[in-house]
C-alpha cells in the first residue's frame, strides 16, 4: 500500500465539486452535493458513510452510471488520468469502463448472470476490450481465476454461479474486474454480504492483488472496521458532503469532526463492556429535506447558532487532515478561513 507522501504527484482520479441531484415529482434530492476527492496511484482510498450519504452515487458518477432521469450530474469535474470523464461521450466512456476502471459490487449473485458459465462471463469482459483467440481467452480466464485464489481453476470454468459459494462468487467478480488490468478498481461494499472469515480473506486478496499489480482502489463501505484494515486515506461522508478527510491512522487516532467522533465512540467492543455506549441522537436526514447550514447540526452536541445558517468551510489541520467543522477548529485555537 502506498504511503500518503507518494500522492504529492498527480492523482490518478480527481473529483472536483461533484454534484448529483435526483429529481422527483416535486422534490430534488441532492444526493451528492459538492464533493472533492482524489485517488493517487497505488493508493487505497475509502469513502465511508451510512446509508443514503451519497457514497455509492459518487462511485456511480465516476463510471457514468447515474440513471438519467431521474438522476443528473449537475456540476463537477471527474478527471481520470488527465481527461474529464464528465465531459466524455458514452461511446468513449465505454472504452474506459471495465477496461481502465473496473467495478466490484456488493452482491455477486445479482451481478453475475445465472445462465452463463464462469468462463463465458470472464471472457466476455476481456473480449469487449481486447479481442483475442478462444485459446488465449481460456488461458487468460484460468490465469485470472488462479490469481484470485480459486483452487483448480480449469475445473471451475464450466461452473455456473449458483454452484459457487458466496466467497468464491465474489472472487469471480474480482477476476472479472481484473480481466483488463485496470488502473483503478471501485469496490462498493464488496464484503458486506459475506461472513467475517470470508470477508477477511477477500480483503486480504484485494491488498495482495494491489501489491502485485500496483493498482489504485476506491473502496466504498459503511464498516469502520473494514476501513481501518484496508485504507491509506479516508473520506467520511454525511448527507451528500465530505465532512472529514485524513490518513487512516490520523482519522482513527484523532478524529476532528463531531460526526466522525460520534461514530467512533458509538462502536461496541469488549473493551467498552459495562460502559454505556455513546449514541448520536436522531437519524440521518432525508436527502430531499436536508437541514440548512451544516447538515449535521440537528444531531451535533457542539452546534452553535451559526451552524444552522452557514455552510461550514473545510478546515485544514495539516498533513492532509481536513474537517468541515469550524466550531471544533476554533476551539483548538486555530483561525477559521472565511
Amino acid at each position, binding site marked *: 500500500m502506498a504511503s500518503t507522501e507518494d500522492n504529492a504527484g498527480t492523482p490518478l482520479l480527481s473529483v472536483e465539486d461533484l454534484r448529483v441531484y435526483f429529481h422527483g415529482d416535486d422534490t430534488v434530492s441532492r444526493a451528492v452535493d459538492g464533493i472533492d476527492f482524489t485517488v493517487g496511484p497505488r493508493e487505497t482510498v475509502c469513502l465511508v458513510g*451510512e446509508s443514503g450519504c451519497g457514497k455509492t452515487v459518487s462511485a456511480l458518477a465516476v463510471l457514468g452510471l447515474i440513471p438519467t432521469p431521474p438522476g443528473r450530474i449537475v456540476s463537477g469535474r471527474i478527471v481520470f488520468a488527465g481527461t474529464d470523464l464528465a465531459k466524455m461521450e458514452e461511446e468513449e466512456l465505454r472504452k474506459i469502463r471495465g477496461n481502465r476502471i473496473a467495478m466490484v459490487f456488493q452482491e455477486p449473485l445479482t451481478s453475475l448472470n445465472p445462465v452463463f458459465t464462469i468462463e463465458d462471463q470472464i471472457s466476455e469482459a476481456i473480449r469487449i476490450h481486447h479481442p483475442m483467440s478462444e485459446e488465449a481467452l481460456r488461458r487468460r480466464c484460468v490465469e485470472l481465476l488462479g490469481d484470485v485464489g480459486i483452487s483448480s481453476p480449469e475445473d471451475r470454468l464450466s461452473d455456473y454461479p449458483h454452484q459457487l459459494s458466496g466467497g468464491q462468487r465474489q472472487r469471480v467478480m474480482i477476476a472479472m474486474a481484473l480481466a483488463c488490468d485496470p488502473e483503478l478498481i471501485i469496490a462498493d461494499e464488496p464484503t458486506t454480504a459475506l461472513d467475517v472469515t470470508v470477508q477477511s480473506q477477500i480483503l486480504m486478496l484485494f491488498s495482495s492483488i494491489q501489491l502485485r499489480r500496483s493498482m489504485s482502489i476506491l473502496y466504498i463501505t459503511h464498516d469502520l472496521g473494514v476501513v481501518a484494515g484496508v485504507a491509506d486515506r479516508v473520506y467520511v461522508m454525511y448527507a451528500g458532503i465530505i465532512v472529514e478527510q485524513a490518513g487512516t491512522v490520523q482519522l482513527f487516532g484523532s478524529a476532528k469532526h463531531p460526526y466522525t467522533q460520534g461514530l467512533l465512540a458509538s462502536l461496541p467492543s469488549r473493551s467498552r*463492556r459495562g460502559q454505556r455506549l455513546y449514541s448520536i441522537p436522531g437519524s440521518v436526514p432525508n436527502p430531499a429535506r436536508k437541514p440548512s447550514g451544516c447538515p449535521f447540526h440537528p444531531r451535533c452536541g457542539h452546534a452553535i447558532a451559526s451552524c444552522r445558517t452557514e455552510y461550514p468551510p473545510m478546515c485544514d489541520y495539516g498533513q492532509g487532515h481536513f474537517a468541515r467543522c469550524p466550531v471544533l477548529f476554533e476551539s483548538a485555537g486555530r483561525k477559521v478561513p472565511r
Partner: protein
Amino acid sequence: MKDRPNTETPILQVSGLKKYFPVRRGFFQRISGWIHAVDGVDLSVPPGETLGLVGESGCGKSTVARTVLRLLDPEAGSIRFDGEEISDLTEAELKPVRRKMQIVFQDPYGSLNPRMTVGQSIAEGLRAFGIRSAAKRQSRTAELLEMVGLSADSAERFPHEFSGGQRQRVGIARALSVEPELVICDEPISALDVSIQAQIINLLKDLQERLGLSYLFISHDLNVVGYLCDRVAVMYAGKIMEEAPAMALFEDPRHPYTRKLLSAIPEPDPSRKSRAAEALQGEPEAEPRPEAAPEGCPFLSACEDRDASCEHLEDALYPVAEGHLVRCPKASGKVDSA
C-alpha cells in the same frame, strides 16, 4: 453483568437439541438425505443474563432460535423453559409459554404488517395477552412506545413512516407487549446504520436492567457480542464448538474455529492491520457441509491443527476452566499451540 456464576434455575435450558431438514431430489421430490442444521446443542440462559450465540451464516443459529420457540419441531432433545419441559407440548399447551418468550427479528420492516398502524400491531399482542378493554390496550401501547423511546402518538403511524432504527424500536415494543421473561434477539442490529446500532444496543441494555429480561442474543457481529453478552457460545455446522464467559472467550479462545473467527473481526484500529494480514494469509476457503455430518470434527477440513485422531472425535465438550467448554480434546489441554 454478574461477577459470580448464577446458580438460579435457568430461564431456558436446552439439551441435546436436534433439528434436521430433508434434502429432496428428483421429479418425485424423494428425500435423499438430511441436513443436520442443529445437531445436539446444549444451551442455558440464567435469569437476567445474556447468552450470545455466534457463528457464520448456515451454522444453525437461527434454527436454534426457531426451534426453542417451537416455531419448528425438534427431532430430539429437551427444551426447558423456567424448569418446564416444552419440547412435547401441543399448540394449545404452548400458548401460555409463548407469551413468556418473544423474538426480535433482524428486519423489523419484514415482520411488521404494512397495512396496520404500529399501534394496531402492538395491540394485537395485547389482545392475545387477554387485555379486552380497548382503552386499556391503548394506554398500554402508549406506555410501551414510550418505554422504547418513541412518542405515544407514533401509534397512529404506519411502518413505512419510520426509519430503520425506529422500526426496530417498534419491533422491541411489540415483543415486550406480552411481558416476556426471555427475548430472543436474532441479529437485531445487523440491518441498521452504524450511528443507530448504539441506540438500539443501549435500549436493549436499559430494558434488561429495568425489566429483568433474559436475552438469547444471536449475532455474527463479535464486537457487539463482546460488548453485550455475559456468556458466549460459538456454533459451527450445527454444533457448539466452544462456550465460555464472554471475557474468557475473547481473551483465551481455545477452539481453532473460535480463534479463526476472532482473528477475522474487522476492528476499528489501523495498527492491527498487519497482524490480521499475517494470520489469514493463504488460508483455504473451506465450508462446512452439514449434509454430510461427518463422524469426525466438523471443522476438520479447515483446521490447521488437525491430525488422525480428529477423524474419530467423540461427540463431547471438554472443560478448560470453570464454565469454559471446548469441542476439541487437544485445545482443552494446557498446551497453547497458537
